[in-house]
């Protein structure tokens, strides 16, 4: 049951304060389904705080003092408090899962919490997660025994299939050795609003809009359009080359021959 039609969902973020208490410079940032946005900036610049504000629909009640509206108004309490109505799924850097449950049990409980009534949801989630990751996840394994990468790909698949949220917030997904291009391409196809906090140039270039942060403040919102096209192609090649080298190192190979195939 969605109170607001997912297709028309408009999230607007209004400015708060920098870490030193000055008002932020931007006017407002609008987020719609289909938007692929990255948030970049040094560590400690407030990237995670920015997506946290969206996750809790901040009403000037978080450390940043920002205000977030849904379709121009204050979001209903159930958006924030009832998982079955929450239009947001967030994957944080905390991929530790403390639950003393098997993957199947965990997913089944989350299906109940999100009130998801579709069939075979649990199997579909594991299937998708396994596309994001080389090491296969099995349903009968304890969730606490999964690797960091497995947990993260499971969480992304869970957000897509079980939560079915129109807005996805992803905090540094590149760090866990998952197939990031596969993830980004899959998410792009779903017409969801996706916000990536990232240090990865490839993910940053794959997005349509970049929010730049410093000292807890949004300092720029960039829409480079086609002007970065050449860089995207170049970085894509470099990234593929690096992935190949990474895989060879991971399987214990000693690298020989001509470096970078040139």
């Amino acid at each position: 049951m969605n109170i607001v039609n997912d297709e028309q969902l408009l999230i607007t973020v209004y400015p708060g304060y920098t870490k030193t208490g000055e008002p932020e410079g931007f006017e407002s940032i609008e987020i719609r389904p289909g938007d692929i946005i990255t948030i970049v900036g040094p560590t400690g610049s407030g990237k995670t705080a920015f997506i946290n504000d969206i996750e809790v629909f901040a009403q000037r009640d978080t450390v940043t003092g920002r205000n977030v509206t849904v379709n121009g108004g204050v979001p209903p309490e159930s958006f924030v408090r009832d998982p079955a109505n929450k239009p947001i799924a967030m994957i944080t850097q905390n991929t530790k899962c403390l639950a003393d449950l098997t993957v199947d049990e965990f997913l089944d409980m989350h299906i109940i919490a999100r009130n998801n009534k579709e069939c075979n949801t649990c199997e579909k989630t594991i299937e998708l997660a396994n596309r994001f990751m080389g090491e296969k996840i099995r349903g009968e394994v304890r969730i606490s025994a999964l690797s960091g990468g497995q947990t993260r790909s499971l969480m992304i698949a869970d957000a897509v299939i079980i939560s079915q949220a129109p807005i996805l917030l992803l905090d540094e997904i590149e760090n866990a050795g998952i197939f990031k291009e596969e993830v980004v391409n899959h998410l792009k196809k779903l017409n969801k609003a996706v916000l990536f906090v990232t240090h990865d140039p490839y993910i940053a270039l794959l997005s349509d809009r970049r929010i730049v942060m410093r000292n807890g403040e949004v300092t720029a919102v960039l829409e480079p359009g086609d002007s970065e096209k050449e860089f995207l192609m170049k970085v894509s090649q470099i990234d593929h080359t690096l992935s190949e080298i990474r895989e060879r190192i991971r399987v214990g190979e000693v690298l020989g021959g001509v470096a970078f195939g040139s």
Partner: protein
Amino acid sequence: MAVKLIVIAGPPSVGKTAVVKQIIKHIKRNNGAPAYLKVDVVVAFEDIELKEEYNIPTKKVYSGDLCPDHMGIMVIRDAMEWAEKEGADTLIYESAGLCLRCTPYISDSLGICVISAVFGTHAPLKMAPMIGLSDVVVVTKTDLISQAEKEVFREQIRKVSPELDIIETNAIQGTGMQYLMKVIDMQKPMDDLNHAMLRGIPPLGVCTICVGKKEIGWQNHFGVIRRLEDDDNIYRGE
């Protein structure tokens, strides 16, 4: 009696005092006058800390070798009268939070159970009495777990009692606290201490409280009794 009573229960180190601080700040911001009572077993610093930080009337009682919830039930009537005399409009009573079986919640008060999101998935069921008889469950440290796990944890709490108000928060930063404050603002003062009763039956035992006499205040009990002022008079079982 024009004092509202807020009972805070929950295991040690979950962040009960961090929640209390947010409540005190909220009440003071709205020109209210909170008072604070801590019941603990051997050591507690919260009364001194809160008095210094917020300049409000505070008090602590050590239960020694007595069950701290038993102690709380004994002294709470005196404490309500003390709070009224101090000019307070709200008494926040923080339990020691040692026994997950006991439920020190009282009728006509607001019972808040504080639990931590980093407890295992089964924790809510193990603490069922403490959670089930409360009005509001505040889940702290939610910034430390994933959203999916937070939602699964919430589902476990709902297994204990489907109607409970669940508030997820990072109590140190105060995220999510506005929902708790709404409930606190709606809470009415306790008008008659003679009608205030324990909500649940404490564990079976040999004292008047343990055998199920639910009236509060030492006046209504015999055997091992305590007044607010004589908490150092510890019963040694002679």
